[in-house]
């Protein structure tokens, strides 16, 4: 599996557009800046929704209204983040595919998606009974707290990708080599 991922990343790395994106100082920086700055829209909305459920933000605004209205800019923000995120991966595919932090981030993104699905399902089932309460019921609050926790770690992992502490071209422990998916004898980093 690791070899398959590595070979796919090498193939991506060899494409003309990947090299162009990576080597273009301004284009790469614009894409990365857009990815980071869209946090203000996507995570900004998401955190406000989660904090509303926990009773820390906008407690006197109906929860359903917050979730419904803020989900539009949030979806826009996540769409831009998704596109720019794929572009960033495409620009540096081998190192990203073998980054411990990138892999943890991807797993957490799946966890975030599952949590968001369950959160909205539970909320839609019961919101009419607690819509105006300052704090949501405990099941919803747990979902909101999980969301905050997961996304905080996603941001931390995203930031850590830039650091080379666990890169495959350094001597790493067996555990790190396993998690990063380092391929014995690989020549591309």
């Amino acid at each position: 599996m690791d070899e398959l991922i590595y070979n796919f990343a090498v193939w991506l790395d060899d494409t003309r557009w990947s090299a162009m994106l990576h080597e273009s100082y301004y284009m790469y920086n614009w894409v990365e800046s857009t990815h980071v700055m869209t946090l203000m829209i996507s995570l900004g909305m998401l955190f406000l929704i989660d904090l509303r459920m926990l009773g820390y933000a906008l407690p006197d605004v109906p929860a359903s209204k917050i979730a419904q209205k803020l989900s539009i800019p949030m979806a826009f923000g996540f769409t831009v983040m998704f596109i720019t995120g794929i572009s960033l991966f495409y620009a540096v595919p081998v190192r990203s595919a073998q980054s411990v932090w990138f892999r943890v981030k991807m797993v957490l993104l799946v966890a975030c998606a599952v949590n968001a699905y369950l959160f909205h399902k539970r909320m839609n089932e019961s919101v009419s009974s607690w819509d105006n309460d300052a704090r949501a019921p405990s099941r919803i609050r747990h979902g909101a707290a999980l969301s905050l926790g997961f996304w905080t770690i996603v941001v931390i992992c995203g930031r850590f990708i830039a650091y080379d502490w666990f890169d495959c071209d350094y001597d790493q422990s067996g555990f790190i080599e396993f998690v990063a998916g380092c391929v014995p004898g690989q020549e591309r980093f």
Partner: protein
Amino acid sequence: MPTSIFGPYTRTIFTGAVITGLLLFSFTYARVGVWIEVQPFFEWMETTWFGLIGKTWGAAFASIQAIHLIGLALLGGSVIVGDGRVLGLILADVPARTIIDRAHKVFFWALMTLLATGIFMACGVAMKLYYLPVYWYKMLALCTGVFFHFYIRKPLLQRELEDINPWLLKAVGVSSVMIWFTVAATGRWIGFSG
């Protein structure tokens, strides 16, 4: 009395004048004298505990950077919701007063998080920042944002919104969003410079 000349917008006009003065000062040769004067302060920043930790412990610096980003997300969220409501684009069916006041609380704590983590990060790379023009642009944008938010936007929006000229409301909302996105953009560009 200035109040009688400028009417209810005295504070707004004076703060606007201060921001304009700050901008003019920053783009004239007069700033060089101040820049030389503050160099010892930046040298001292690197010798503080924050500076030593930031320079020697990469994981701590990176973790604080991540918290800075989370603060940025919260600040962005509060600005978009607060100013989106001022512009009538978000939560238009909820009383504006409620949204503006509640969003301000989130904004305040997000700004505190950004300042605390930002000071830590600046200590770690103080001399690099000192020589980076984009860092000074960010400080200029940040000062403009703080002055604008606390001395123009907040006092203005404490009045009954119906009594405020709708065009002024729109100008304040758009300006606020633009200023804070400029702060974020210049901050991001620091990472690409030097």
